[in-house]
């Protein structure tokens, strides 16, 4: 009878991303990377550069220190035109900060590893997976989520798509649709008369298990025609 020791949910195996077989999760990796950066910093006195946001001109992101890079730090994010100040861990991904810190739960987290697109938001108008975007990098950038039009309509492209989604019944359970709507918004902002192939390519990174893919194409075509 073989006897083996396994730590946590892992068994010391090799396959990246398999929780049952991988010792190190992505977040643990980030945490360790940060620790390495901190250790390096202690020698070189460069300090925390590895994690410093590109938007670090924002004064509130300077709270991180070289001695405790896991310490919660204040951060200000501009989401749907509204500045939000919150406290995050440097390893936090944008999707978690939106959902857990800001309670903007319209952005979904179906897979958390860049496979499904359910977490798609617009960053400076470009569709981005927020599950693999460090929130620390976001100060100074404009973030747009599915909630953008909920107070007043600030994005007419998104509004046209939302209306078409209703007419063409492009959503059933609806959990993946916010991400797909944001991807479609990015498409139509750059191309108001896309071909079917261009539409497919734009939302190909958004998985849907309910499978109303054809209604999605029809809805995007209708929204494009209405713009």
């Amino acid at each position: 009878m073989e006897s083996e020791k396994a730590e946590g949910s892992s068994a010391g195996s090799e396959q990246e991303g398999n929780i049952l077989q991988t010792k190190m999760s992505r977040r643990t990796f980030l945490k360790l990377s940060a620790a390495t950066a901190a250790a390096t910093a202690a020698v070189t006195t460069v300090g925390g550069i590895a994690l410093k946001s590109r938007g670090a001109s924002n004064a509130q992101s300077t709270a991180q220190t070289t001695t405790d890079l896991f310490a919660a730090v204040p951060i200000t994010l501009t989401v749907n035109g509204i500045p939000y100040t919150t406290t995050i861990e440097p390893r936090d991904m944008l999707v978690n900060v939106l959902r857990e810190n800001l309670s903007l739960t319209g952005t979904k987290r179906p897979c958390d590893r860049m496979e499904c697109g359910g977490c798609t938001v617009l960053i400076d108008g470009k569709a981005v997976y927020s599950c693999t975007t460090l929130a620390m990098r976001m100060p100074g950038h404009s973030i747009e989520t599915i909630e953008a039009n909920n107070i007043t309509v600030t994005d007419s492209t998104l509004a046209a798509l939302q209306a078409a989604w209703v007419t063409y019944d492009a959503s059933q359970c609806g959990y993946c649709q916010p991400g797909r709507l944001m991807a479609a918004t990015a498409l139509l902002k750059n191309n108001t008369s896309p071909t079917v192939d261009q539409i497919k390519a734009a939302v190909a990174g958004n998985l849907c298990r309910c499978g109303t893919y054809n209604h999605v194409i029809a809805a995007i075509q209708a929204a494009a025609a209405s713009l």
Partner: protein
Amino acid sequence: MSLAVVGNPNITRRDIPSKVTGQLVFTYDINPATLGLANDQMLYMGMVRCPYPNAIVKKIDTSAAEAAGYVVLTEADFAEYNLMYVGSGQPHAPISNTVLYPGQVVAAVAAPTTDEVEDAISLITVEYDVQPFVLDVQDALAPNAPQLFPAGNLPPGAVNPENGMFTAATLRIAWGDADSAIASADVVVGGLNSPIELNTAVIQQAEMEPWCDVAMWSGSLPTVPGPTTPTSPESTTPSAPMGTGLTVYDTTEAPFLGQATLAGYFNIPLNSVRVIGSGIQGVGASGFAGMTMGNKLGNAEHVIITAMMALKSGAAVKYGPTRNDHLAITSQRFSERAYLTFAATSSGMLTAIKGVVYENSGAWAGANGSDTISDILNMYNVANMDISLIPVNTNTHHYSGAFRNVGESQGHFFLERMADMTAQKLNMDPAQFRLMNLHGATVDTQFDPQSGYRYSGYEGYQAFQAAMNQFGWSSLWKGWGKPSSTNGSVYYGVGFSAHNGQKGLPIPGSNVKITVLSNGGVFINSGRTENGAGSDTAIPIMGAESLGLTSLDNFNPAMYPGAGYLHADTALTTNDSIQGGSTSTRSSGISIVLACEALKEQWAPAIAAALGVPANTTLIFANNTIYPEGNPSNFKTFTEAAALLTPANGFELGSVTGSGSLLFNTPANTTYRVGGGKFVMVAVDVETAEVRVISAVVGMDIGRVIFAKGAESQVQGGFTQGIGEGLFEEFWNDPTTGRNTNYNFHDFRMATQMDAPDSITPVWVEYVDPVGPFGAKGIGENCSMCVSAAIANAVSNALGNYPFTTTPITKADIVTAIQWMKDKGMLPAQP
């Protein structure tokens, strides 16, 4: 019957605005702020899972995690409680030191943030005795195979110890004399000693919102907030005390079953458990599921583990698994292996079906494959039948919970590949072969051959024919060995599958309440969850039709304050059975029609008085008006009539409510089946082995279309789901290690936007089903049923009829098939 709302193509899904604006809070979206809790009042839970397929926990060290302040659960925490069951399987503790499948939980840990959950998991060390394992059904029945349970790898009582024969715990159904019929048949596919082996893969529910539970016990926590909208006089008084006992927000299709499971497990009164299966802060809709792929039933282990963690920690606990974690536990469809023989006369009449189906039940679950057998019994008229089901336990997960179809996809794949191979051997058009042999073509053959029960209403044969004609089968099918057409290296193949599945049972105990408010608003209270299948729209449609309304406006709380639909909360709603098995339209539909009749009975005297007619006058509700039968010019508008609902007129609440319950009064000796056919064109590039589904036509014996947009989406979505089953999806355990290799969306490949066909066209065959509301049946599950078979038949046709016998047909299989056909000189030449 003139219908204003039922089947109206302009009615849009009621809950879709809350979904496309991100306002609906799904269960997975719950955070402390959502529930009005402080951040330190909620913990997040993760699972420690064993990677080995068969192991015993020798030692588990949780001290480091506990020293760091995390709360840990192990088997010991469940020692004082009874064992639980998954389905009809073997009893076990929710967390057990006896591991029988890779991914089974050996500990749970809770931490203050989602990030820290991963830290906490890494602090727990487990030492295992790793045991030999078995993954394959036939390996598991071999002598010396590792035994999962003391009685072996068959369900308890499956074998008579005295004579070694299978018993009723397995399943064998026979009539006529299949052996003699096969021996004397003109044409045999398979043979008594050489049956055709067919295999299906394990597929995953893989819904986009992972399963999620948030549990809390009363005590120091604030009272749980109820749904913020909608409310009505009838729904604001909880039927059970709130803020006492256990509250669970759950992605479930069966909140009342979950309530019973939790109350039973913790041995507390039923009304001390509140299960909320609906979304909050939104109109109607629920915490997930992917439309009738379901979410889960009430008996999954992690619901109990979450509640136990809440009990131990004294905090609210959220179990919102990662995708990897979720794919380790979600509902699956077990693999099946069949050995089948078909026999026919030279004129094409099917005379015998004989075979055995091995079901891989996984570790803890029991037999679920009886639907496979039911479909084999019901699809064709066969004078001689001999079919067996053998469910076998193996060291795999294979939890057969909520998910479209149970054994039907597997059964239809077996049947429809065998039928095509039989037609090929007869050199007969496969569609003509079906038309000659399909069961239920006429009323006198619409019965279940096993039970003798009559089909309630059935035009599956007509639906098959309608789809065949719409598709243009007779011109597209060019004969055996010939693709439909070619374009360079791209070969176009056509194929189809008939379907006949047992779906849409009207479930006794489905209860619905409907209320008309004095402002004209209408409110529905039904414990049914809305998981994307559209019952949040379909049930109001049937209510509106019954009340003579011409739109769903009166259910809109923005237009009529207090109107709406309250779902799936065991403290506030009716018990409206479960959202599954395509049962909702029939079950809640019958109930809401009854509820509307009860409501009208109370309301009618006041309206009659206002109209100046005797109280017992028959009133007609139509076109947003109410009038005496035969005198539509003497009317009150619906709004005017609603304004009569005042205390002065005897309506103390300022409203009137009717209740409807589907009792055990459906016709005796009746079975409920939905039939039709799916016709498919595929393109196969014989140089690159790329396969693409080009178009599909789906014929559906629907009875009556209720929610037109939703029904079309069901067909589209179900078919697309079936593309994955046919071409990509396989949940795979490595035979050398027994470990699973694809707990993620990259390696467990589903159909994407790029795989969507150019068109998926539904063909509805409408008539009045005698049992269903407005003549409707339930079709959700039939939408994916048999798609894999239709695709296999079409791909086979494109390649000159390669004998595919497995799902999925992967790119590697296509490469093999092309080479095999080339080697035999049978691959049709490129023009």
